[in-house]
């Protein structure tokens, strides 16, 4: 069976050019970058070149880049590291209701440590109102954390406006930019952010590597103790092949950004249009301010996982809600925050397009989805036939 991968929000295939860049480091260039001898020095040099490459793309200094094991660690380090280092100065953190669990669950843990958390609401498109950020900032606010491009519904937040507010108020701003590489601008000065988290495998890089940008001068407590790697901010022998691959993947993603974005947006809009032509199907997330590859739709009267399995049977890989929590029957916290009724939230499926998605694939999806949906609706205890409504 031909298989169509429309789950690029969960992970992406490794770009062959990235693998090629990694191979020497999986073979002869195996040294530990901390070693003083030849084997170490050569690798250290390449590692620092990768750091410069990443820094260049973000418009940052190499010293501001902390390599981590992934997006989760980057988010955890950003939040925990900063507020613990600043604990003498305050105890308040502001975030939003549509963050990834890597941010939300870290906040829950920090709450147990005595920090105060404010979770900002979003509108029906999943957008945060900058004014709400402004109003929520208190004397003792240390950090605001706002996701850049939402992993579930694709909504892009007005980061620059929020950044202007946090700068005025002298509060730090972290953004989870994991879903945005190769799609949205990443220059930290433009975004006005102080911390920014990335994960390589979301942009055709390898699993097991991530980045935390941390603006110079920001105090950050380490989370992993041990060797002096990453200027004492993240201990542990560096995942050298992973980091080299990540830098190369980022470079490619940025080089090909315009073209890929244009192509994907066109296909995305075709898919959205096709799905919305069905009865009782709604688009979740913002109609225009959304990630180029993201289509999230709710199919009334059926449950998302069931549709997912039906599509899988037909060779189409999609996801319901966030990949990480799709094992549970909890409706997506993002959809609920947007005010979508639980029944409708349960019926949501996410298609995330990638670089290699073709128009033929979209056509096939648009052929298969209506059949699959109808079959499930016909089975559904809460569906009474076309046009009969809830």
């Amino acid at each position, binding site marked *: 069976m031909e298989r169509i991968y429309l789950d690029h929000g969960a992970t992406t295939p490794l770009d062959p050019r990235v693998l090629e860049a990694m191979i020497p480091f999986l073979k002869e260039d195996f040294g530990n970058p901390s070693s003083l001898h030849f084997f170490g020095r050569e690798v250290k040099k390449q590692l620092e070149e990768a750091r410069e490459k990443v820094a260049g793309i973000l418009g940052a200094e190499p010293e501001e880049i902390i390599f981590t094991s992934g997006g989760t660690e980057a988010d955890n380090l950003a939040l925990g590291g900063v507020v613990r280092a600043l604990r003498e100065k305050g105890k308040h953190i502001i975030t939003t209701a549509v963050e990834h669990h890597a941010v939300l669950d870290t906040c829950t843990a920090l709450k147990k440590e005595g920090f105060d958390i404010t979770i900002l609401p979003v509108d029906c498109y999943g957008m945060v109102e900058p004014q709400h950020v402004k109003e929520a900032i208190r004397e003792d606010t240390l950090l605001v954390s706002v996701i850049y491009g939402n992993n579930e519904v694709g909504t892009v937040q007005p980061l620059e406006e929020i950044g202007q507010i946090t700068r005025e108020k002298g509060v730090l701003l972290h953004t989870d930019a994991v879903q945005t590489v190769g799609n949205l601008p990443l220059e930290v000065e433009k975004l006005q952010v102080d911390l920014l988290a990335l994960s390589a495998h979301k942009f055709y890089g390898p699993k097991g590597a991530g980045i935390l940008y941390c603006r110079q001068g920001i105090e950050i407590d380490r989370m992993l103790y041990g060797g002096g790697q990453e200027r004492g901010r993240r201990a542990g022998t560096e995942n050298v092949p992973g980091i080299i691959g990540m830098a190369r993947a980022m470079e490619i993603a940025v080089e090909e950004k315009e073209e890929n974005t244009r192509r994907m947006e066109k296909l995305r809009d075709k898919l959205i249009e096709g799905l919305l032509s069905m009865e009782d199907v709604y688009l979740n997330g913002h109609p225009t301010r959304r990630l180029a590859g993201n289509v999230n739709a709710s199919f009334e009267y059926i449950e998302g996982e069931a549709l997912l399995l039906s599509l899988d049977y037909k060779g189409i890989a999609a996801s319901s809600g966030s990949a990480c929590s799709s094992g*549970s029957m909890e409706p997506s916290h993002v959809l609920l925050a947007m005010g979508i009724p639980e029944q409708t939230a*349960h019926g949501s499926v996410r298609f995330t397009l990638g670089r290699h998605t073709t128009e033929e694939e979209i056509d096939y999806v648009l052929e298969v989805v209506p059949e699959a949906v109808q079959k499930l609706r016909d*089975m559904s205890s809460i569906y009474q036939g076309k046009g009969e409504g809830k």
Partner: protein
Amino acid sequence: MYSEKVMEHFNNPRNVGDMEDPSGAGEIGNVRCGDVTKVFIKVNGEGIIEDVRFRTFGCGAAIASSSMLTEMVKGKTVEEALKVSNLDVADELGGLPKQKMHCSNLAADALRAAIEDYMKKQEK
């Protein structure tokens, strides 16, 4: 994650649909939890379940469990059918993932509700 048997029942569910004049009908679950299962039974004079139908709003496990259950109880007496537990259904499906066990409860519970409905009607 799911066994082949689960996927087979999910893709080719048995006994789907409504029933005219059922001997008993039961409904369990609620839309907010993403799970609603309806079961209809036709019971003959000897107390044997001659026909059974289901409709389910729910995940793959919920649909497959409903389908499996209907196969298991068709031709059984209501007393025998009452003994079919959620675990029996899951076993017959070749097992279900832990976090999905609650989904298989719905089917057996809906059947039980249908049988109670049938019994209540009998009393009248």
